[in-house]
C-alpha cells in the first residue's frame, strides 16, 4: 500500500523497474487516476536524472587527467597514422619501412608498461576486403613484455596485442586473404594469427 512514508522508496523502485508485480500494478493504477501522483513520479525521475547528470559532470572533470599529457602524443600518432591508401606492393613496403623507422624513433620501452603503437598490415597478394569491413591498413599494436598470465600469446581484433618479449622493429604483419588469417613474421619465425579477438597462443 502506497503512503506518504514509503512513497519515495516505492517510486525509486518503480523507476528502477524493481517493484514486485502487485505493487507495480498499484503504482501504475494510481498514476492513471491520480494526476498529482503521476507528476510526483515524473518529478522524482527528473530529479534522479539530474543528480546523475551532475555527478557525471563531476566525474568528467576527474577524467580530464586522461588527456593531460596525451594531447601531444595523440597528434604525433595522428601524423604517423594518416597515410594514403596502399595500392601497390612497393608502396606497402615503403610504408612498412617508414613505420619501422618511426617505431625505431619511438623505441618500445621493454619494461612492464605496454604502450600503444601502430603496425602496418602488409597484404600477401594485394587483395583487400575479405574481412567484414575490409582489411585495415594498419592496426594499433600493444606489446606486453612481462604479462603475469600470458607469454607467446596474441589477441587480434581491432587491436593487435602481443604477449612476450617482442621487438617492434622486427615485426612484420601480413594478411593472407585465402586463409583469412594474419601472418606475423619475427626473428625468422612465422605465426598465423586468427582475428577472433580472443587471447590465443602463438602457433608457427
Amino acid at each position, binding site marked *: 500500500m502506497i503512503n506518504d512514508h514509503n512513497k519515495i522508496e516505492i517510486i525509486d523502485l518503480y523507476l528502477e523497474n524493481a517493484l514486485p508485480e502487485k505493487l507495480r500494478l498499484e503504482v501504475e493504477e494510481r498514476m492513471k487516476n491520480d494526476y498529482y501522483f503521476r507528476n510526483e513520479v515524473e*518529478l522524482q525521475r527528473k530529479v534522479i536524472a539530474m543528480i546523475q547528470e551532475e555527478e557525471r559532470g563531476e566525474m568528467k572533470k576527474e*577524467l580530464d587527467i586522461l588527456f593531460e599529457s596525451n594531447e601531444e602524443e595523440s597528434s604525433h600518432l595522428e601524423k604517423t597514422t594518416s597515410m594514403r591508401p596502399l595500392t601497390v606492393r612497393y608502396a606497402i613496403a615503403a610504408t612498412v619501412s617508414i613505420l619501422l623507422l618511426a617505431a625505431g624513433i619511438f623505441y618500445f620501452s621493454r619494461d612492464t*608498461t605496454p604502450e600503444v603503437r601502430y603496425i602496418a598490415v602488409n597484404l600477401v597478394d594485394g587483395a583487400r576486403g575479405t574481412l567484414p569491413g575490409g582489411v585495415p591498413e594498419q592496426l594499433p599494436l600493444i606489446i606486453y613484455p612481462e604479462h603475469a598470465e600470458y607469454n607467446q600469446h596474441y589477441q587480434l581484433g*581491432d587491436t593487435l596485442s602481443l604477449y612476450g618479449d617482442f621487438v617492434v622493429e622486427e615485426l612484420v604483419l601480413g594478411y593472407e586473404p585465402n586463409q583469412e588469417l594474419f601472418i606475423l613474421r619475427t626473428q625468422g619465425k612465422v605465426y598465423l594469427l586468427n582475428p577472433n579477438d580472443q587471447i590465443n597462443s602463438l602457433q608457427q
Partner: protein
Amino acid sequence: MTNATLLQLLRQRDNRAYRELRKYVPVFRKPLRQMGLSEEDQKDIIQESVIHLYEKLQSPTFDITSKVSTYLYGVCKLKGKEYLRRNRRTEQFSGEIDHEQANPEETQRLPDDEQIRYAVRSLGYPCRELLAAFYFHQVRLKDLCEEMGYSSENSAKQAKYKCMQRLKKGLQPLLS
C-alpha cells in the same frame, strides 16, 4: 597492471586507473577521428565511455570478460556512432514542435531542467553526497553507513528519504 587490478581501481575511481587508461586514449580516438568527430567530441565520448564502464562496474552482476581497453574501445565506437545518429536526427529535424500533440496540463506543471539543477546544487552537504552516492555511485545502504557515518542502515535510509523529500519540497513552489 593486470586487467583485474585495473577494474578494481576503476571501480574505486582511483587516479592510477585513469593514468593506466591514458595510454589507450590514442587507440580510442582513432575510430572516432575516422567518423569525422572533432577533438572535443572525441574527448567527450571517451569520458562518457569510461563513466559508462564505471557505472556498469557498480553492479554486482556485471561481468567483463574482455580486456578493459578492448571493452572501452568498443563502447567508444558505439557511442561515436550513436552521437552521429543523434546529430543527423537533430539536423533533419525542422525545429518546429507540434504543440497540439502535447498535453499542456501535463507538460507545464513540472519544473524545467535548470530549476532542478539549481535545486540539486543548492542541497549542500550531506544531502547532495548522500543522494549522489545512492543514485549515481550505487553505494549500498550498508556501505553508506561506513562511508558517511550513519549508525545503521535504517538511519541512512531515513536520511536519504529526508534529503529527497527536502529536494522535492524545494521544487514544489515551481509546480504550476
